[in-house]
């Protein structure tokens, strides 16, 4: 199953994942990122580089994997590809600490 971005990304939007993704499958909203599950090749490179562990293999989700894949797919269709690193959101550090990943 593809990798997906979870809600942990919201208010962070670190982009280490974008820099390492070989297939440019991240799409950016103002507040967070999404993975195009149809473009993801499951290389898993983005998982360890995310400072808030926001990316998971949908296979590892106990529940809600189909919904999360559908959300990532839907938002990826609506949003532009982000293919370069950018600064995290101003709220990122506070959010990261609250998540205590």
């Amino acid at each position, binding site marked *: 199953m593809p990798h997906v971005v979870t809600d942990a990304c919201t208010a962070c939007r670190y982009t280490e994942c974008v820099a390492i993704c070989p297939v*440019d499958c991240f799409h950016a909203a103002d507040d967070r990122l999404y993975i195009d599950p149809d473009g993801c*090749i499951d290389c898993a*490179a983005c998982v360890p580089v995310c400072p808030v562990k926001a990316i998971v293999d949908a*296979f590892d989700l106990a529940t809600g994997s189909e919904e999360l894949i559908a959300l990532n797919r839907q938002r990826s269709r609506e949003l532009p590809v982000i293919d370069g690193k950018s600064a995290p959101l101003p709220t990122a550090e506070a959010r990261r600490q609250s998540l205590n990943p």
Partner: protein
Amino acid sequence: MTRTLAHDATVLGACPHDCPDTCSMLVKVAQGKVTGVQGNPAHPFTKGRLCAKTSHYQERVYHPERLLYPMRRSGPKGSGAFERISWDEALATIGERWRAIIEADGPTAILPYSYLGTQGIVNGLTVGDPFFNKLGATISERTFCDSGASTAYVMTVGPTPGMDPESLAHSRFIILWACNVLSTNAHLWPFIDQARKNGAKLVVIDPVRTGTTAMADLHLRPRPGTDAALALAMIHVIIREGLVDRDYVDRHTIGFDELSAHVAPYTPEFAAAETGIDAGIIWSLARDYASAQPSAIRIGVAIERSAGGGQVVRAIACLPALVGAWRRPGGGLLQLPLWAFPVRWDHLHRADLATPGTRVINQWKLGAALTGGLKLDPPIRALFVYNSNPLVVAPDQLRLKEGLAREGLFTVVSEQFITDTARYADLLLPATTQVEQDDLMFSWGHLYLTLNRQAVVPQGEAISNAELFRRLAAVMGFDDPFFQRSDDTILRESLDWDAPTMQGISMERLEKQGYARLNLPAADVYAPHAEGGFPTPSGMVEMKASMAAGGNFVLPTFRQGSHEHQSGTPVPALPTYTPPRESGIREAVPGARHPLAMMSPKSHSFLNSTYANHRRQLARDREQRLYMHPLDAEARGIRSDDLVRVKNDRGAFVAVAKVGDEAMPGVVVAPMGYWIAGSRAQATPAALNPTALGDLGGAPTFSDNAVEVERA
């Protein structure tokens, strides 16, 4: 040398699989167990990425179905019933049985069967060769993958590494030919992507619609097995339109005049009729390929899988020289950079230990070899399988099952799991995974050596392949110390460390860094054949191949180092088009019993059958599917998700139909790797695959396969 394993550590590893990418891996160990793996971010080619197969390698190591102990069969062959025995008993049994067979029928009654289940220098392709050569067993001709293409390539440009894969970033025009990069060579993609972002055009030639073809500026879909017509028509256009780099051709090729005359009939219109691709597109493809320099062609291993699959590569290997693509970094042909590594093949195979005249059996013929089809004298009485799962990868599955079920056949299988093949074993031997062994990896997809250090103690009583052959040598009384060399000695002795490409590379550096690029110029300046220097008999690109005079052959690399008993069948010296044997348009006549062509490409999440017993990978690739074009589905009353039976005279399997444009009209696509044990009708696509070999190098013809499909 014994190394102490750290209880908690990050260990430098390397992916063991039969893939061009050979990733450098970081293996995380906590309390003596592997907790996870990730790509090594420092590696310049694999760059911290793994893939859908290996990203959770620990799940393979600790899989509940791992084979952990030697086992003896306790039920009928194929039943999967086994009982645990000791290593001593297993080895003693092998020794007794083999000695009895050798006494009665001679050592050639024993057949080794292996390939690249693990592909390291220590435990991979050649690990059993010295042992079986010394034993005098029948020699295995292992033409599983790229052997046909390699024969063709070597005949044309010699055993050159060709262009640096990383230099693709500097290409202006890239053709990916029979290569689903995003699934089977994914770490090459970023270099292609860089070229695209610099304005390069990407053409993908593949009958199947894949993730890779979706990225292309132009996706061309030739009918399976007609690619040589396309390549020859490209040559035709390049010559006819005056797009030839005359200076390069004059200085660095032979046979141009003969080739020019030879390709006159191979017009784009001819190729259009064969391939189904519009003639105008073929014209413009050839013009664009010639004009946009540097231009690159990456051929995938699938290119050889039809009757004329070798000559396809002969034709393609002429193209870069014709247009002078080799002149600059980012230009040329990428096939098998393996040849860059200064491997001491003679030392790995030890063909000098073989008994002169020993017979050779091509491994695609295993079903026939075990069932009397090859009229062997003596017949095969013992089979030793390691690094391979022939029941899923070899053709003619029903016949192979019949052969493996033979009561008189003594079969030993070394494995990590009880695979479909292993179920037929008399004895099972447990093999280590990569984190439980040491190895040093060359690559057939990049120019780095990658070290794999053992991270944890083996599960159960699993042993590495190298250790297996040390034990077998002791059992068979081989007292030459060569057979008791340590893993570190093997890996040190298997490379020529004094070669220019090894300058600056030491074990110390590999231990520290995990990898090292061969001592070659950087990819942005490296143009290995800018001034010719091809390792052919003439030193030129041999458009007219002098090696054709000796007839067809398989490189000794793929046959335990043996030069004997080569086929020698005549080979045309100029690249020629041979239409598909089974699946050509000529067969698709009204009333044909098997009007569809079947291809069985690699699945995204499996490596052949490896990982097809993992829940994670099955969650993505689910069960056996058959992709069909809507026209073919409608004509048979088939809808998506219907169960269908795919059949020909060799066998049948059942799949879930997926109707869409993944398959082109007249072609059905059955991704391979699924296990027979989990299949709906105890068969997989290999049941339909032909045993006929292609025109060069013993290549299989799995994309040259006529079938019919019906609702199940």
